[in-house]
């Protein structure tokens, strides 16, 4: 799938927001794959870079709200790591827009939906 997006979400906030999204009747755009991790704190540079290198157009990470990580600071670490990768990518002449992380509360299905759509629009996957 050349024109694909990957959504990595954590088992807590991200998952609940995704469930709320689907229960409200919002659906993901086509070409979007999902992948669940126990905590966004597990995401590391290599994982993101290898995924992008394999032709995925963009990676969207949905974590828990700050201060609300079950593992204390997994989401904050992930946010910083993604900031680092974004900078690395833009330094390398690839636009940093291909990676994005946002945090969601359990009820923010609508916001998750619009965030994913915005992101899909930004990286050029419709």
């Amino acid at each position: 799938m050349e024109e694909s997006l990957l959504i990595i979400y954590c088992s807590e906030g991200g998952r609940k927001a995704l469930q709320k999204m689907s229960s409200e009747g919002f659906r993901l755009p086509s070409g979007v794959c999902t992948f669940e991790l126990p905590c966004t704190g597990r995401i590391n540079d290599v994982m993101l870079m290898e995924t992008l290198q394999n032709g995925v157009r963009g990676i969207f990470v949905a974590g828990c709200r700050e201060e609300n990580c079950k593992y204390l600071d997994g989401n904050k670490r992930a946010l910083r790591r993604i900031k680092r990768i974004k900078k690395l990518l833009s330094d390398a002449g690839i636009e940093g827009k291909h990676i994005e992380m946002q945090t969601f509360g359990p009820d923010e299905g609508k916001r998750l939906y619009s965030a994913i759509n915005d992101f899909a629009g930004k990286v050029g996957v419709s």
Partner: protein
Amino acid sequence: MIVAEQKPIGEILKKLPEVEKLLVLGCDTCVTVCLAGGEKEVKVMCSAIRMADKKIGEVTGFSIERQCDREFFKEIEAVVKESDAILSLACGAGVQMLSDYFEGKLVIPGLNTHFIGSNEGAGYWLERCLGCGDCMLDITGGICPKTRCSKGLMNGPCGGSENGMCEIDPLNTECGWYLIYERLKKLNMLQNMMTNQPPRDWSRAHDGGPRKLLREDIQP
């Protein structure tokens, strides 16, 4: 430990020649410990170079125990033979050793080597030694005035410190001589303060006190 930091990738890319095969070589000792040139960084670097719009045919990643020891180069001889250039993620010593050993290959440095220092916590490194070759730590109670004093004074404080902080950076940098005084007091060796030190060789002067490396993305 030698503390180094990765060069901005844009700078590295500019330096890379257009070659058929590139080897990215990491070092598993100091620079792995300071999170600049270990196996993970090699992988990330490889991916980044592959993705960057650069006319490089093939990028291989490899990592050896130490780049400052000849013996370890044996295991990569075959790989190096096949590649056209090496991007070394080691300290300056490693880069120089590589170019010495593989004379025919172009070696590009991927890191900026900063200082000899200690790991003070997640993502925080502090300079501890200047490598001046003339250690006087026995007299100063184990605190080096050459590194810890911003002005590198050898015979007591300048008089500008306040509340134990250096006048150059009163918020973040401690006065080296204040630390020495306190330490000597604990050791009951205050008479050492009276020992006269010969003037330093200023030809190897450094600037601005202990250099710090703060990496926000690693800190807790």
